[in-house]
């Protein structure tokens, strides 16, 4: 709705319409696609004999209403050509055409259809459509645009189609294959779908910015692919037309916001999480072990499903329940749980009272959750506690905090380990007097000085224990002895072995400067942008047992003082994680088994193929509503949810990706089945029943045949989302089998053939056109799956614009068989796609494409005439027909049979004859030019055939490959 300040007014006739509507009772009905589809009765038709499948009832009823008649059935040769392309993406072999033409049995056509559906080519062809929707590419797609391993996902898609994996399962596996109770290697491979979109590792970008970008990309892709909704419009504000609120959008993004993934891809080929796909010989053993592991994990999940009961029982048991750390000696505790602003309270005494305020750049709240939405300091933030932590060398004390060094992208490996001061009460301007807790390139160090460098204690862990992007609980204790032996360091509750670097402290360590977070006073050795949580200072030495309880158990004790019914979701999560992580014996036993199986799986996956996959983080999924979509403008934290105007998730369903996946294919969801069948329809007929295949919202196109769409959706769903059955049903329809011939009247009345009074005819996708050239020439190398290949490409296409350090800057062309694989195996560099395919409207796949453009340009003509791939295919095709027969006449006929599955018409043949004669005149006299012409491509020439004879035929073959009819299905 336009806001009042837009001053949009209604025209008198619009007001009149509204009045009329009100007068008629103001019946309001929701937008068609938001109402669940019902199985529509088949409409009655006059020409009952024409009908072969229920589809025909709907199409014919409409034609009869419009006063149109269907076209006659296409001739058998056209039909087998069409259906072979539609089901396999390749032309039929001439023998197949002849067999079909001669087969007069009533089920001749069905036999062809079933043969094609069983061909492995079927899955390859279907996959090329789905990979557009899944935005599959072999590079990250932004900035440095490095290669990444995701091609096993492409093979999963091919396999899924060929095995006729039912589409509901296909969807669930892709959205949450990593979370399924009955997950398998295959379903885990499918989960690469989530991560198939573009991502960045650009050095200067900010972690939070990329995290927001990634989940937004995935949510928009999900909306377009499965809901047919432009949900991304609600990124900045409520959707202007559809009832998707901004909150709906962010609730949807929350499903995709809990991956165990660093938002920076760091330009890595193996951007974690990854799967090692075992080599074929280990696959069976791997799958067995994987299934065992999944079964145990199911038991762990089952146990966890009883969390409330188990936890309640545990808490009720006086001896086993959680035990607190005594508050004795606790002089300061800053939880950093305010959630807003820059003032922080001390809760050491139980009462909360403000103790300090950050100055300089404000702190950042809520980028993520650690117990609760956490606080992070910014580069310019100063945070100090003046009255805390001044301890002389004779007094015992302990300092503890949770902390998370900020993610620093794209820096040398060294930078994975933070370097700087974590906490201090020390005066850098006066001999460093006081204490400092330091991250020394990831090693934890405690420095306690009267006067640096020598009048001091210095101890340090020998190994790196701190990593950027990870939460660590740190404790330093001191017993007041004045000796290094009196210092203990703990990380995540565990005592650390330390090396004593100095042990010469003699004099007082007392200083008047404040306790500082992330630096030493005044501004030395800063560790900027660090997040802190639950800082504590004790005027006593904590024991080993206390140190072990401090990170989690103490907090759990605090929570458990309240009745469970009053716990927040975050608190319940904290207690649950703690209970199953440290207290539940059966879970331990199961986890031990998992660990063993993991070892076995790693062994079996050795030397396998890497694949980016999805993996859920153990945290609760959240997202923040962002004001105007700005990544840092968080306004409200939300849990995952589906759009409010659609049927909700089942009561009690966990709020996670798996629930979303199941909901997507649930009977209640009015959209997905329709969206899916519509897209499959558009592959065959060129246009969807809803033309805007990606938008079923209010601004999308209305369906040309709503009842048919609904019938197809319900029928598909009720037959278990059986994909092969669906295509079979379409191609067996009379509608599909019509001749594509149009009349001027029909073209006039229905230029886009939406009513389907004639058969489908449109220019094929680039892949089909190139594959046709390869297949007809005999060059095609058929092999399903494997790493992407690099066929011919003109020099400079990658090199011209790539980032200088990109590993896809230099195109190194393959040789031999890789030059002639089906086009869906061609390496897909998103920032420089193959120029031939680009000219033929292949999308970039930097977002979802549910329907390609279909342009017609001079550049396309240049590709088809001059690209070496087509010229080489012409050369090979010429040799093929020269071998197959000896007569000029029959050779020309063969050309027609190969490319068009039919003999030439008289006029066509005359044109080719004429051209051939002219070419023969030219090249018959000019062996040198003929040789030059034939030199294209790496495949061998048959040198028994004279160049002067092959060259003219090569050009005739090239002409034939350029024909409109060859480019159209």
């Amino acid at each position, binding site marked *: 709705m336009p806001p009042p300040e837009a001053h949009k007014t209604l025209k008198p006739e619009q007001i009149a319409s509204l009045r009329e509507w009100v007068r008629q009772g103001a019946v309001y009905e929701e937008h068609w696609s938001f109402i669940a589809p019902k199985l529509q009765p088949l409409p009655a038709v006059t020409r009952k004999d024409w009908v072969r499948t229920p589809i025909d009832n709907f199409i014919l009823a409409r034609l009869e209403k419009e006063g149109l008649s269907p076209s006659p059935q296409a001739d058998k040769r056209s039909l087998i050509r069409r259906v072979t392309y539609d089901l396999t993406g390749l032309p039929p072999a001439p023998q197949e055409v002849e067999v079909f033409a001669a087969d007069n049995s009533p089920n001749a056509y069905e036999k062809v259809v079933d043969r094609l559906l069983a061909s492995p080519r079927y899955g390859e062809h279907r996959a090329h459509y789905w990979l557009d929707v899944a935005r599959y590419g072999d590079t990250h797609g932004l*900035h440095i*645009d490095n290669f990444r391993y995701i091609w096993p996902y492409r093979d999963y898609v091919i396999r899924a189609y060929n095995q006729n994996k039912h589409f509901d399962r296909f969807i669930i596996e892709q959205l949450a294959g990593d979370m399924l109770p009955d997950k398998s290697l295959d379903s885990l491979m499918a989960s690469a779908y989530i991560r198939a979109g573009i991502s960045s590792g*650009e*050095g*200067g*970008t*900010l*972690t939070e910015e990329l995290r927001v970008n990634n989940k937004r990309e995935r949510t928009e892709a999900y909306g377009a692919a499965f809901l047919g909704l*432009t949900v991304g*419009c609600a990124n900045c504000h409520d959707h*202007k*037309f559809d009832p998707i609120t901004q909150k709906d959008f962010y609730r949807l993004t929350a499903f995709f916001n809990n991956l165990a993934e660093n938002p920076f891809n760091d330009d890595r080929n193996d951007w974690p999480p990854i799967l090692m796909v075992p080599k074929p010989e280990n696959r069976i053993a791997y799958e067995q072990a994987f299934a065992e592991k999944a079964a145990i994990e199911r038991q762990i999940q089952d146990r966890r499903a009883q969390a409330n009961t188990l936890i309640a029982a545990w808490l009720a048991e006086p001896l086993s329940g959680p035990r607190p750390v005594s508050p004795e000696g606790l002089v300061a505790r800053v939880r950093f749980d305010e959630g807003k602003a820059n003032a922080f309270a001390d809760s050491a005494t139980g009462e909360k009272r403000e103790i300090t305020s950050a100055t300089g750049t404000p702190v950042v709240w809520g980028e993520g959750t650690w117990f609760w939405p956490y606080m992070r300091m910014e580069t310019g933030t100063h945070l100090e506690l003046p009255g805390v932590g001044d301890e002389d060398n004779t007094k015992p004390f302990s300092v503890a905090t949770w902390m998370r060094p900020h993610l*620093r*992208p794209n820096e040398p490996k060294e930078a994975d380990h933070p370097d700087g001061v974590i906490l201090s009460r020390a005066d850098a301007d006066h001999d460093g007097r006081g204490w400092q807790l330091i991250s020394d390139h990831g090693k934890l160090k405690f420095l306690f000085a009267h006067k640096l460098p020598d009048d001091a204690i210095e101890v340090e862990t020998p190994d790196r224990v701190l990593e950027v992007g990870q939460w660590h609980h740190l404790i330093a204790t001191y017993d007041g002895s004045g000796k290094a032996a009196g210092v203990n360091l703990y990380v995540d509750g565990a005592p650390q072995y330390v090396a004593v670097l100095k042990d010469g402290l003699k004099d007082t360590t007392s200083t008047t400067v404040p306790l500082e977070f992330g630096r030493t006073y005044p501004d030395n050795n800063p560790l900027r*942008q660090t997040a802190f949580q639950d800082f504590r200072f004790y005027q006593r030495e904590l024991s080993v047992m206390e140190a072990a309880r401090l990170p989690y158990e103490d907090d759990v004790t605090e929570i458990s003082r309240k009745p469970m019914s009053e716990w927040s979701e975050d608190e319940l999560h904290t207690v649950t994680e703690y209970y199953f992580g440290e207290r539940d014996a059966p879970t331990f036993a199961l986890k031990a088994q998992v660990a063993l199986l993991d070892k076995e799986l790693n062994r079996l996956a050795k030397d396998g193929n890497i694949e980016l996959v999805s993996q859920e983080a153990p945290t609760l999924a959240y997202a923040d509503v962002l004001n105007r979509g700005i990544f840092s403008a968080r306004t409200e934290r939300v849990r995952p949810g589906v759009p409010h105007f659609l049927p909700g998730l089942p009561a009690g369903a966990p709020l996670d990706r798996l629930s979303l996946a199941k909901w997507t294919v649930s009977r209640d969801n009015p959209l997905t089945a329709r969206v899916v069948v519509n897209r499959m329809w558009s592959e065959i007929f060129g246009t969807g029943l809803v033309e805007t295949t*990606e*938008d079923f919202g209010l*601004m999308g196109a209305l369906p040309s045949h709503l009842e048919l769409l609904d019938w197809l959706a319900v029928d598909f769903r009720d037959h278990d989302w059986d994909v092969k059955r669906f295509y079979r049903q379409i191609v067996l329809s009379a509608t599909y089998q019509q001749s594509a011939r*149009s*009349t*001027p009247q029909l*073209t006039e009345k229905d230029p886009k053939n939406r009513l389907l009074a004639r058969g489908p005819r449109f220019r094929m996708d680039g892949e089909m056109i190139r594959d046709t050239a390869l297949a007809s020439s005999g060059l095609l190398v058929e092999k399903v799956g494997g790493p992407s290949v690099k066929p011919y490409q003109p020099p*400079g296409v990658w090199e*011209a*614009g790539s*980032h200088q350090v990109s590993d896809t800057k230099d195109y190194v062309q393959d040789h031999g068989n890789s030059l002639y694989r089906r086009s869906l195996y061609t390496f897909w560099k998103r920032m420089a796609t193959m120029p031939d395919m*680009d000219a033929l*409207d292949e*999308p*970039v796949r*930097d977002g979802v494409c549910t*329907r390609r*453009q*279909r342009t*017609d*340009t*001079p*550049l396309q*003509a*240049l590709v088809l*005439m*001059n690209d*070496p791939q087509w010229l080489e295919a012409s050369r090979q095709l010429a040799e093929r027909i020269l071998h197959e027969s000896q007569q000029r006449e029959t050779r020309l006929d063969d050309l027609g049979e190969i490319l068009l599955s039919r003999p030439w*018409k008289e*006029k*066509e043949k005359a*044109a*080719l004859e004429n*051209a051939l004669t*002219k070419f023969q005149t*030219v090249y018959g006299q000019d062996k040198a030019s003929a040789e*030059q*012409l*034939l030199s*294209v491509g790496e495949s061998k020439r048959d040198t028994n055939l004279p160049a002067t004879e092959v*060259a003219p035929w090569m050009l005739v073959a090239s*002409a034939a490959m*350029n*024909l*409109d009819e060859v480019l159209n299905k």
Partner: protein
Amino acid sequence: MKRENPISQNACCDHGGEGPTVYDLPVPRSLREEWKTLATRRHFLGRMGKTLGWAGLATLLGDSVFGQASAAESLTAGIGAHRLPDFAPKAKRAIYLFMSGAPSQMDLWDYKPTLVAQFDKDLPDSVRGNQALTGMTSGQARFPIAPSHWQFAQQGKSGRYVSELLPWSGKLVDDITLIHTMQTDAINHEPAILLMNTGNMNPGKPSMGSWLAYGLGSMNENLPTYVVLNSTTLPGTDLQPISPKLWSSGFLSSEYAGVAFRTKGAPVLYLEDPSGMSRNVRRELIDAVNSINQTTFEELGDPETNARINQYELAFRMQTSLPELTDFRDEPASTWTLYGDEARQEGTFAYNCLLARRMAERGVRFTQIYQRGWDVHSNAVGNTPKLTTATDRGSYALVTDLKRRGLLDDTLVIWGGEFGRTVYSQGGLSKENYGRDHHPRCFTTWMAGGGTKEGYVHGQTDDFCYNVVKDPVHVRDFNATVLRLLGMNHERFTFKFQGLEQKLTGVVPAKVIPELIA
């Protein structure tokens, strides 16, 4: 030069389509004349003539909301409502010299003499304010000020100070409009360069050139409407990537996408016939294809077949017109005096400038020349001169050449990058060298010709070249102004996609900066 298929409208675009004749519309005379000149050839080409920036035109006239089916109605409605552009286009074409990587404003155009005294002092927090820093310097302990390494001298009658690095284009100060106060929302290359080119930080939106191709159409069917030229890169410079995203047609038909010329050999891929094939043979082959296609058309009645016949004819002609375009042998000696010998070398920036002028003469609507390498995070002192040496003379020569040929009046030339650079040094600062990080708050862009002012400086930055003191020009305002110079109202020049009136300038209201227009 791509043509849409009116029958199977597809994909992320909906098109203008066909409609009644436009010649008697009350549009600016110059546009009408242009169309008439083209009419003859268009007639010859059959249906191709009907899509002459047609869709874009209709949005200018009508309510701007129209789908493919209703283009004609919308156009008629537009006439009835007399909703016309209230200004005539100043420029017919544009050439955008894009300095990818982002040049340093305070080392080239924005003179800050007081910085010398500030060497190695910390940039005051009050100046830096709450500006988000990139991940590259946000962890930096200090932000030491790095004054420019180079001397500035007064240039032209106006006596503006320009860096010694720009001895040639410095001479243009009396001809150009310098904008010191460009501002962007992005602080990293990929989003920033997308924002400059497409008005959005995420991929998928049409580029400025595509909008112009869509809105204004072609002036020469035998050449692409929108050409992208990539320049030879310079050893040692830090290259940020450029990719077809930057000249993408987004949701507009892909016929409006930029065509990236090759820096070596034939300008367009697959333009050249294979060796061993004469033009006569090519002609014979196309004749055979077209005659059979004609039969197919008669048989099946699909208008698309007819369209394909035309595309093959056009391809044949492009095979002649493109080599002619890139054959510089007909250039007079004065050209080489002006551009220098470097312009003889294929792919150099100077070569591309000369090629851009030749395209301007031949009616290419929009040319964008990229020079990569300006990303001086380190070694600014070593790399900046390499880049200015490569680009300075060509930029000067292009403007001067257009001017002396009388083309500058209706050709808009733009020079600029995707953001500016920080006054403080990234990494170590010494007397000899420094690096500069990305800076979104102010940077310098200049425009020449095409209805811009001569010798005008717009806006003012603070003494630290960090903040705008006066007259900021946001990217969207800049783009709105560019559209205005080319005769488009950015508010009304829209395209409906995903239910939204999409525009180059995006959803946040943009404004034309009137001071930039003569």
